[in-house]
Every structure is written in structure tokens, then in C-alpha cells.
């Protein structure tokens, strides 16, 4: 099913989507474009190359409340946050980000215990992928076989033309969504042609790349290498890279209380922070920034591969672009592998 809507009617369409469920879409802010829950259709933008932060917040918000509690003298009143989330729509997701959801699924929903917060939101969400037609020097999604107009994993895939936004239902879920919105028109043959062309063009766009062959093993082998100290030297040990990353998933659980009332919440954490592995005894197995940088790289390019047979990176380039000192994870991995 291929539908279309005139760009001038985008607001109308977005309004219709808001009716269908909680809508997450790109919004332009001071520092760039980012995903937000949309209240006003007019906030949504499709004029962006990449978002600052990844759309992982749709399923895994930075702060995820689990239980609210009120401490009483003898007892504690507890109110669990319901897992029955409203249907959600993730709008304008880059193909590489779509891929990240699948990667994260492996951790959160496989291997025994399921994380219900991720799983429930994931089940309830319709993903509307969005094609791109340019490449940033920091990007390297090509290394993972993803391209700028890859429809894999999307429920609906969108291509923006000069006048229209074209929408193709990829899955049943997508079809259901598109057919329920009556502001859409059926696409014409020329639209279909344009759509296909764009997919093709997307596939032809070249990013930086890297052969993943043997990377996991090599990284594992060079665990003790002095390379890590060298490559981590400029690292500031801030957490930007992990926070903007679509596949970083480390979190903390905190009880935040005020005046006897509080919330137990999952909060994003970062393996780049000193206190991440600090134990109550004062012992810290990772005191050096080289150890922490190594952990981040290895977790993505080695350990994850061992456990889930997929690299936990989609080459979106966010960490590289956001890094205050321009550390580029691709270069780090490349040079690591070369150094073996």
C-alpha cells in the first residue's frame, strides 16, 4: 500500500496521527532536531538530516518511572506505573535507528527475562521510517548493511518528495495505521516510481565503512593492549556518546524521594562515568578512562556480538558528532583492529 499526502497538509496528517496514539516525532529545537512527544502538530519537522539524540527514548526514556511510593509511619503505599501503554507512533525514524530497535530487542526481550517496559512499548508502537538522501562525514551505517532508504523494520516507510510525503505500509501494523487515516490519498504511478527511485538512490549512497569480519574476536584478544590508553587519552569521560547512542542501554535504578514521597525509576546511566562500577566498598574495577572507553567499544563490537550475534552499533554517527573532542568510534575500532 502506498499513500501520499501533500506537504502542505502535513499538519493535518500529524493531527490525525495524534488521534491514533502517542506520537513521537522530530521537533526543531535550539541545538538541533530531536524526538519529542507531540502535542501540537505544527511542531513536527521533516527538515532534518539527523537528530541529536536517538529515538530510543520512545521505548526507553531517560527516566522511566516504575513505582510511586509514599512512606508512612508503619507501611508504604505503593502505586505501580501501569505497563498498558497507549498505542504509540514513532514518526520519521531513520533507517539506521530502526535497526537499533531490533538490536535492543535482543537484550531487552530475549535471553530469559523480558524487560516489560521496553517490550510493552515496543509492541504498542508503529514505526514510521523515513528515507534520507545525503550522507554526513561521521556516518558509517553502511558498515552494517543499512542504507539511507532501508525499509527493514519499519511498519510504514516514508519518502519526502518535492510536494508530497509518500508513505508505504511495510507491515500489517503499518497498513492498519495508514488505512485508518483518511487524510491520505492513494499514490499514483509516478509516486510509486519516485518512491522506488528514492529507495534505490538511498541504497547507492555511500558512507564510511568498515569490515566487521573478525572484529569481535580481535577486540577480545587485544583486551590488555596499551592501545586503549593511547586512544582514550583525549577522552573526557563524559557520557554524551552513550546518551545520544541508539543502542546504549545501560541504566541505573534509583529511588528519588522528597517529603516521604517518591518514585523508583530507571534512569539512563553511562559506562563512561567513574561511579558506574563503583562498589559500596569503594572498590572500582574500572578506574581508568581507557578501561571505560574499552568497555564501551568492546561491549558494542565484541561482547554484544558474542551474545546476540549482532554488533550493537548502527553507524548513525551521533557519538562522533557529539563528542566534544571528536573521538570517532569507527576510527577507534579500525585502528584497534589494525593494531592487533
Amino acid at each position, binding site marked *: 500500500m502506498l499513500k501520499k499526502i501533500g506537504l502542505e497538509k502535513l499538519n493535518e496528517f500529524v493531527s490525525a496521527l495524534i488521534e491514533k496514539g502517542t506520537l513521537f516525532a522530530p521537533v526543531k*529545537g*535550539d*541545538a*538541533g532536531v530531536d524526538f519529542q512527544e507531540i502535542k501540537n502538530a505544527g511542531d513536527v519537522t521533516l527538515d532534518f538530516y539527523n537528530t*541529536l*539524540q536517538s529515538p530510543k527514548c520512545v521505548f526507553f526514556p*531517560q*527516566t522511566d518511572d516504575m513505582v510511586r511510593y509514599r512512606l508512612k509511619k508503619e507501611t508504604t503505599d505503593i502505586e505501580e506505573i501501569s505497563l498498558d501503554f497507549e498505542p504509540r507512533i514513532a514518526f520519521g525514524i531513520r533507517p539506521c535507528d530502526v535497526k537499533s530497535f531490533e538490536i535492543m530487542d535482543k537484550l531487552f526481550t530475549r535471553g530469559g527475562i523480558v524487560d516489560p517496559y521496553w517490550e510493552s512499548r515496543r509492541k504498542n508502537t508503529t514505526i514510521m521510517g523515513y528515507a534520507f538522501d545525503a550522507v554526513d*562525514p*561521521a556516518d558509517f551505517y553502511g558498515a552494517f548493511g543499512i542504507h539511507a532508504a532501508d525499509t527493514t523494520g519499519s511498519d510504514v516507510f516514508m519518502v519526502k518528495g518535492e510536494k508530497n510525503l509518500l508513505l508505504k505500509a511495510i507491515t500489517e501494523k503499518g497498513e492498519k495505521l495508514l488505512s485508518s487515516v483518511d487524510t491520505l490519498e492513494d499514490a499514483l504511478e509516478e509516486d510509486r516510481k519516485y518512491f522506488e527511485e528514492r529507495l534505490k538512490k538511498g541504497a547507492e549512497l555511500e558512507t564510511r565503512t568498515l569490515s566487521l569480519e573478525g572484529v569481535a574476536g580481535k577486540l577480545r584478544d587485544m583486551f590488555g593492549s596499551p592501545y586503549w590508553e593511547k586512544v582514550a*587519552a*583525549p577522552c*573526557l*569521560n*563524559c*557520557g*554524551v556518546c*552513550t*546518551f*545520544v547512542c541508539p543502542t546504549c542501554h545501560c541504566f*541505573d535504578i*534509583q529511588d*528519588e524521594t522528597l517529603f516521604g514521597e517518591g518514585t523508583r*525509576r530507571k*534512569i539512563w546511566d*553511562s559506562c563512561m*562515568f*567513574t*561511579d558506574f562500577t563503583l562498589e559500596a566498598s569503594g572498590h572500582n574495577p574500572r578506574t581508568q578512562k581507557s578501561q571505560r572507553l574499552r568497555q564501551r567499544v568492546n561491549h558494542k563490537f565484541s561482547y554484544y556480538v558474542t551474545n546476540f550475534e549482532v554488533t550493537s552499533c548502527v553507524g548513525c554517527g551521533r557519538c*562522533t*558528532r*557529539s563528542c*566534544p*573532542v*571528536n*573521538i*570517532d568510534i*569507527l*576510527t577507534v575500532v579500525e585502528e584497534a583492529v589494525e593494531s592487533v
Partner: protein
Amino acid sequence: MKDIENRLKQEAKRLLESGEAEVVLAYGRGYDEKHPMPYAAKAVSDVDNIVFDEYCTFNMTRYLTEYPLGTKIAIAVKSCDSRTLIVLMQEEKVKREDIVILGIPYRDMIDSKTGKAIDNSTACNLPNPVLYDILLGDEVTERDDGSPYDVLKELEEMELDVRWEFWSKEFSKCIRCYACRKACPMCYCDPCFIDQSQPRWADKSPSLESNLMFHLTRFYHLAGRCIDCGECSRACPVDIPLHLFHKKVSKECEEMFDQVSGMSLDDKQVMVDFKMEDSDEILL
């Protein structure tokens, strides 16, 4: 600029060869031309990797405190960076005799993220380093483009509530990645107060209030120490203009205590010092 790069390499080579320095903190190549990186040359063979261009904005003094006291370090500094050195020396985090200061008399730096020039609205932008052993070029003599506090005018003139709107919007954006504090050469505390659990000064989850607690306290900790290099704002992924707040605090310190941070090795940090004749009016 190429001259500076060449002289930087030349001096780095000389210092490493002679053993006057064990490390040269300068700039190196990044993943593309517009994105150089901080670089620590430790051997003569590393010197070739050194670059200098208008994107080498990093305040390399940030890395000084990572080396054990007594390490002989040569460091490339631009104007504000040299002021950082002075503060670090005042605070005895580095010793003057351990540092060879390679001053860079150049200031047309460009923020590679925004493509905008770094000027007195984003940094202190003195033309020349305040303290150096070797100046890699001629002193910059031209241009005097006003006070680094000029940029505050608009904020200062805002109605209180409007200013609150401004800052509350800015601080709401913070994702607590701590790039600001980690990029800051003065924020060498490890752990930071915000990481403490007893007490937990602010919730770990970002919110306007917890972010406010973090940032305001950090502004206070930097009072009289911030040297206006602007690294915090450049590091911030969500573009909070933290440097403006720092500038304001510096301005107030200057007005109240008549001292500009990082200008003289003889100064004491204003917040760990006092004068009996400080006026009570500063409290009004």
C-alpha cells in the same frame, strides 16, 4: 597558522628530545579536517601527528591533572588556556617548574560544531597568552573588541521573570551527560559532588530542578576560578549557553572582589580568601 603548527612541532621535538618534557599536550588529527583532536605527544615520533588549525579549540590544560604531579609537561595554550594554567598553579594542581608553556598568539578560532568564530561572546578572547615560556609567533597586537562581559547585556537587562524563563528553558534541556564538567579544566574533582549518595544533592534523573541544582552549584564551585575558555558550552550537546552564566559570576567576582581569575600567579582564589574590608553591601 601553518607557522604556528611548524613551530609547535619544532618545539615539541626539541623538548621531547632534550627530555625537558615527557609529554607535549597539543592537537592532533581527527576523523576529518574539520575535527582535530586533543593530542598528547610522548615520543619524538609522535610529533608528526601534531596539527594546529582554527578548529583546535580545546583547552589542553584539561588534561594536566591526569598526570601525576612532577611529570614534565609541555603544553600548547591559547589566551584563556594560559589563564587556566595560572589558576591550576595557584591551586597547586600543577607546578610552574614542571610545565613548559608554549603560547599560541592566535585567536581566530572556530567552533567546529557551529562553524562560528570564537570571540569575546563565547570566550575570554584575550589575544595573547597571559603566561608562557615560548611564544610560537608574534604577539597579536590588533583588535580590541570590547569586554568579554558585553554579551551579558541582553540577559542582564531582562526582567527577572523573563530571565527565569530563559534559564529554565535552557536547564530543562540538560540531559546530564556531564560533558560540561568533564570538558572544564577546573572541574578536576573526582568524584563530583553530584555523584555523591550521602547526601544526594539532586536527583539523578534530569528535571529542571535537579539540573538547576547541579548547574548552579557548579557555577558556584567555579566562582573566581572560571577563566572563560567556553569549553563547557562547546561541549554541551544540547547547546546550553553555560558560559554566559560563568561569565556573569566572573563579572560579579571582579566587581565585588576586584580580581580577575587567572591573571596573576600571586592571586588567591576569591572564594577561599577574604578581606576584612569587604563591604557588607555585596550582600544586598
